[in-house]
Structure formats: structure tokens, C-alpha cells
């Protein structure tokens, strides 16, 4: 029997029968007791998430209670279609996403902050403050975040009246006047690093406080590659938005393009054909494997184990060459398009891919003991950069960073979207939270992805790869949620007139994982920073937008 079909039947028996939102009544009850009304909004456009509207003065209390009840804070975005701001925050528990939404008046826009309850909220609230001018009243950190010197205080690029071109001066000065945390005392010194780093890597600034070789504190200052992606998304057509989404973070092109297309398709009530969905998953798993391979090599290289860098670099290159041969792009860009996919795969390629999968599996089997038994390598990876589960959870960490610290969550399993709703996905989870655990999780996830690829190929039936586009009415909105190789990748889209995009907000998992780096580096030595950083591998572009 067709594996996918069988799996789907199994899932009806198990996961499919899991009742959703079981935690919601308790939350609503408790909020009602506090006098907070959580009114469920009409409409189904944001499904499978559920949308609740609340009064802005209850915004903080609702978050406080959400924290008590163990919800995860998963994102925040603002819209300003007219006189008032619409603020939406995303929460998740047990694979169910709930959106809280409130309205804030135009004049002196103020809103209680979620940061006192969820540290995860800090940077996205600062992002919203810089780009929309909303004041989060009790935010513990009122410094700017995404704004450097390209626009002035009191100017808010994502408001409609701010022109896309802005009013830039010919030469934007370097950022200054940002108050980094300081430490006094004998022997404490500062190491400023970046924005340009030594290597072929994205730019950002790291501000270390160190005593001897030990890191006392690390503060990140990001925003250097802010390209105005949210603003650039406005007024695009769906195809144009998919192209842009595929460039939010080039290493996660499939994940972001899929999330954006999923959001647009849900808003437009379009269901891509089954074959297209399976092809999307094939692209996504191939993207996961490519990044895992490259990073396993790079992590080893950062502690001087060049052998692994060559071996995994070789495997990654072979993988990318096949991407080019079969799908026309080494990084699989522009393959996920609104309504489906841009390219089909011929049967011959499917056969070749099966062979390639077994070949890679054999290589991974062979290389694994060489890493595990190399004591000088393990000596550098084990117990380096430990991220405790409580910290990971408080920061809302995602993907392998979270799973290596014992947070057992994977959208493909816990909030499955097609075609994963018909596939048993094993989420790889460990408890140590160190560099070695993050590497091991990625090693095992590569195997899982190889298995998924085989099942996806087997399930691939003939058929269409593109559903015709239907222009949704102005105001239609949709939410995309995809487990990219870095973790849960979220996307919100609202349509305006004539099928053009009115608002685009992509939330890369890096937003949360970057904060984890600041914590896990404590007490490590400065020379271990590169390997700790690589083991997290946040996207600068994906966080800076």
C-alpha cells in the first residue's frame, strides 16, 4: 500500500484524533476571572490558528496569564491600515497557535509590553517600536534595536505615510550612541567585534566583556543588514512576494517562500495540488540536509578538525549539484510559488534521488564514528556553550537549538501541515544543550530527512503542480507556519486592493535563537565563541529583515 496513505490512516488513529486547543478553556476561564475578555474573532482565514480580540489595556495581563499557563510566545507584528494600529501576537501550546489581537489609537500609541513575562518578546517589540512608533510602556529595555542611523528618531518606516525611498543622506553614518552594557572592575575588558567579521559571514556587532579568557557577558547589536523587507513586500503581487520571501534568508529560501505562499494561499482559499505539496516538502527536506551537512563540517572546522570540513563540504557540494541538475537551482530558490511549485521532477530523477539518498546515508554512517571517536574533537564540543532547557524555553528558542536543550517541538509532527499530516515525523531531541548536542541533533535530523525523502518520493503521484490563482478580497489575511531547517518559520500576509500585498511579516526562528547565543556563551572562553556561534547559526538577514 502507498506509504503516505497508510501513514495517513495511522495518523487518523493517533495524532489525527488528538483534540486541539484543550488548554484554551482553562486560559479563558482564568482570564475571565481577572476580568479580561478574550473574544474569539469571526472568520476562518487565519486557521489553523485561532484569533482572539482583546482590549489594549488587558494586553499585558493576558500575556501574564498565558505565561502562567505555559504558552510559548511566538511572534508579534503590527499593521496600520487606517487610523488605528492593529497589533497581533502569536502564542503556541501543544502545537496549537492562538493569536491575540488588539487595536491601539493613532495618537500617542502605547501598549503594555509582553517582555516582563516573555523575554522572547523583547526584540520584536523593539523592532515594532522602531518601525511603527508604538511605545511598549513597561518594556525593560527601551533602546532602539533595528534603527541605526538610516532614519531619524520620530520617523517610522512601516507607517503608510513614510515613503519607501525614505529621505536618506548620501552617506549614512555608522551607528553611534548605542549604550552597551558596561562592567567595571579590575581585569574586565571589552572586545568589540564587527560589524564586518573575519570570514565569509554576515555582518553584525558583538560586544564582549571578558575577564582573562572567560566571557563575562556578550551583547549582540544586529540590524546591519536591514533591507526594509517588510516595506518592500507591500504592493507586490503574490509571485513577487514569493520571490522576496525566498530571499529573507538565502539559506532558508524554501522555508520562507513556503511560509509566505502558505499564508497567501490560506488568505485566498487556494489549495495547492497534492503533487505540489509533496514537491515542496522534498525541497524543504533537501534544504534541511544541505544546511545540516554544511554546518556539521563548519562546526568541526571551527575547532580545527579540517577533515570533517572537507568531507561534509564534499557531501554538501554533491547535494547542491543534484539540486541544480534536477531542479535548476543549487539553493532551490524560486521553486515554491503561489499555488504550487514552479518545476516538476521527472521519474528518472526520482530514481536517481533514491540512489543518492542511500549513498548519503552510507557516507553518514561511515563518518559518524570518526567524529564520535575523535577525542580531541569531542573535547572541544562536549560541555561547550551549554543552553539550559529553562533558558531555551524562556527565550522561545526553536528548531535544533531548542531540541538539543530538551524542548521537544517540531511543527511537522506537532502542528502538521500537508504533506506532513500524512507522514510520521520523528522529532530529534536531546537534553545536554551543548555544542555537541546541537551537532548530534542535526546529524540525526539528516537521517530523518533522508527517510522522509524516500517516503515523499514513493507517495508522489502524477498530477498538477500548480493551482490557478484566485485574487482574494481586500483585507484577506493568512498565516503560514513551516518547520524550516532552523525551526518554526512564521509568516503573516494581508492582502490589499487588487490582490496586492498590504502587509508582509516574516518571522525567522533566528529572532529567538540569537538571544540564546548571548546566554549560552556565559563562562565559556573567548576562543570558543566561533564554534558556539556556528552551533546556533542564526541568520542575520532573517533577523534584520
Amino acid at each position: 500500500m502507498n506509504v503516505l496513505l497508510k501513514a495517513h490512516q495511522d495518523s487518523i488513529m493517533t495524532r489525527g484524533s488528538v483534540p486541539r486547543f484543550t488548554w484554551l478553556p482553562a486560559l479563558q476561564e482564568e482570564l475571565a476571572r481577572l476580568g479580561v475578555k478574550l473574544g474569539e474573532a469571526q472568520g476562518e482565514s487565519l486557521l489553523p490558528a485561532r484569533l482572539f480580540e482583546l482590549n489594549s489595556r488587558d494586553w499585558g495581563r493576558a500575556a501574564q496569564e498565558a505565561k502562567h499557563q505555559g504558552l510559548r510566545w511566538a511572534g508579534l507584528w503590527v499593521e496600520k491600515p487606517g487610523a488605528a494600529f492593529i497589533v497581533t501576537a502569536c502564542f503556541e501550546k501543544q502545537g496549537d497557535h492562538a493569536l491575540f489581537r488588539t487595536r491601539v489609537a493613532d495618537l500617542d500609541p502605547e501598549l503594555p509590553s509582553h517582555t516582563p513575562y516573555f523575554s522572547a518578546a523583547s526584540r520584536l517589540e523593539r523592532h515594532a517600536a522602531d518601525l511603527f512608533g508604538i511605545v511598549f510602556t513597561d518594556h525593560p529595555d527601551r533602546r532602539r534595536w533595528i534603527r541605526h542611523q538610516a532614519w531619524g528618531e520620530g520617523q517610522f518606516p512601516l507607517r503608510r505615510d513614510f515613503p519607501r525611498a525614505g529621505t536618506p543622506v548620501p552617506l549614512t553614518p555608522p551607528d553611534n550612541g548605542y549604550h552597551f552594557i558596561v562592567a567595571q572592575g579590575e581585569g574586565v575588558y571589552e572586545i568589540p567585534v564587527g560589524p564586518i567579521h573575519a570570514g565569509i559571514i554576515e555582518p553584525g556587532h558583538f560586544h564582549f566583556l571578558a575577564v582573562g579568557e572567560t566571557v563575562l557577558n556578550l551583547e549582540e547589536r544586529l540590524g546591519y543588514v536591514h533591507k526594509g523587507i517588510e516595506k518592500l513586500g507591500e504592493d507586490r503581487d503574490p509571485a513577487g512576494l514569493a520571490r522576496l520571501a525566498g530571499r529573507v534568508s538565502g539559506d532558508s529560501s524554501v522555508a520562507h517562500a513556503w511560509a509566505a505562499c502558505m499564508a497567501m494561499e490560506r488568505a485566498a482559499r487556494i489549495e495547492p495540488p497534492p503533487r505540489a505539496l509533496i514537491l515542496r516538502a522534498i525541497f524543504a527536506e533537501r534544504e534541511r540536509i544541505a544546511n545540516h551537512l554544511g554546518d556539521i563540517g563548519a562546526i568541526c572546522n571551527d575547532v580545527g578538525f579540517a577533515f570533517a570540513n572537507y568531507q561534509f563540504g564534499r557531501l554538501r557540494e554533491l547535494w547542491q549539484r543534484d539540486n541544480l541538475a534536477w531542479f535548476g537551482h543549487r539553493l532551490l530558490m524560486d521553486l515554491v510559488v503561489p499555488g504550487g511549485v514552479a518545476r516538476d521532477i521527472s521519474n528518472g530523477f526520482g530514481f536517481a534521488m533514491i540512489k543518492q539518498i542511500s549513498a548519503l546515508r552510507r557516507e553518514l554512517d561511515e563518518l559518524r564514528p570518526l567524529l564520535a571517536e575523535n577525542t580531541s574533537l569531542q573535547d572541544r564540543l562536549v560541555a561547550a556553550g551549554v543552553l539550559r532547557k529553562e533558558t531555551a524555553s524562556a527565550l522561545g528558542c526553536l528548531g535544533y537549538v531548542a531540541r538539543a536543550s530538551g524542548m521537544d517541538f517540531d511543527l511537522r509532527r506537532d502542528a502538521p501541515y500537508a504533506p506532513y499530516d500524512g507522514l510520521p515525523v520523528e522529532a530529534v531531541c536531546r537534553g545536554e544543550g551543548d555544542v555537541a548536542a546541537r551537532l548530534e541533533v542535526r546529524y540525526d535530523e539528516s537521517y530523518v530527512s533522508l527517510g522522509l525523502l524516500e517516503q515523499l518520493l514513493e507517495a508522489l503521484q502524477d498530477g498538477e503542480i500548480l493551482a490557478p490563482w484566485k485574487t482574494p478580497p481586500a483585507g484577506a489575511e493568512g498565516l503560514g507556519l513551516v518547520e524550516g531547517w532552523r525551526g518554526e518559520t512564521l509568516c503573516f500576509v494581508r492582502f490589499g486592493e487588487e490582490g496586492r500585498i498590504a502587509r508582509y511579516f516574516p518571522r525567522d526562528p533566528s529572532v529567538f535563537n540569537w538571544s540564546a547565543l548571548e546566554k549560552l556563551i556565559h563562562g565559556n572562553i573567548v576562543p570558543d565563541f566561533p564554534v558556539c556561534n556556528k552551533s546556533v547559526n542564526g541568520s542575520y538577514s532573517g533577523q534584520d529583515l
Partner: protein
Amino acid sequence: MIKLLSKTFRVGVVTEPVKAFGDAEMETLGAELKAVIDRRFNGSLAIRQVDAGSCNGCELEIHALNNPFYDIERFGVHFVASPRHADILLVTGPVSRHMQSALLTAYHATPDPKWVVAVGSCAADGGEFGISYASCGAVSNVLPVDLVIPGCPPTPLNLAKALLKLAGR
């Protein structure tokens, strides 16, 4: 250790002879490049890569130049950490306004004579991002550019070819 050596031995050398790039032109260029680098750069051409706002796709492919298949160092091309050691600035991305000053600092820190190479569609003409409140667009809007390598992102093969051409100028 035995296993390690045995794996190394069995995989062997995968570095492709220049002709494996698929055309005879490449082989000639490679040999020429080596000759030019030996003559003009005393055997080594140093590149400082600067991401001035890219999506990181271009970085992945520039990285690939160092994997064993391309191993660009065999032509005498290598990546350096400091612009002070560089002959070439390899710039990616539309130049974000937040990176404009840092890019100029790197440029001024690079000793003359130097070349600026704009890598990728974004660096070439602003690409998907263009000019905006946050982006200066093409690298040539900020710096004099000597060579543009188009592509989103350019493949390692195209990067290698373009570098060979530039050094051979």
C-alpha cells in the same frame, strides 16, 4: 586514526582537474591565472569578502569555492581576514544603509592598487531589494566597481571563472 586515514584514502582526491568544469576555456584560464598571479601578485591573490547586506545566499556559494571540488586556493586565490591584506574586495548584497560606512571603511583600509568585485544580482543592480530607505542598491552606488558577477547567487563555477578573468586582465 586508522579509520580516519582509511576514509581519507578511500575517498581520495575529489578536487577536479580544471577541465572537469566542463570547458577547455576554463583550463586555459586556470593556467593563465596562475601565471598572472605568480607574476603580478607574487603567487597569491588575496580576497576580503564583505557582506554589505546580502540575504546570505551569495555567501554560501562563495564559501563553496573553498570546498574540495573547487579549491580555489590551488590557483593562488585565498580569503583573508583583514582588508589590509587584500587585493580584492568581494562585495555582496545591495549595500544596506546600515552597512554603508563599514563598507567604505573596509574599502579605505584596503591598500592600492585594489579591485572591487560586486557579486550577485543585488550587488550588480540592487536585485530584489533595489534602492530604498534602508538600501543603497548596487555596490557601484557606493564604491567604484571593477567587475560585476551577476547571478542570484552566482554559482561557484561562475565565481571562479570571473575571478580568473579579472586577474588575467
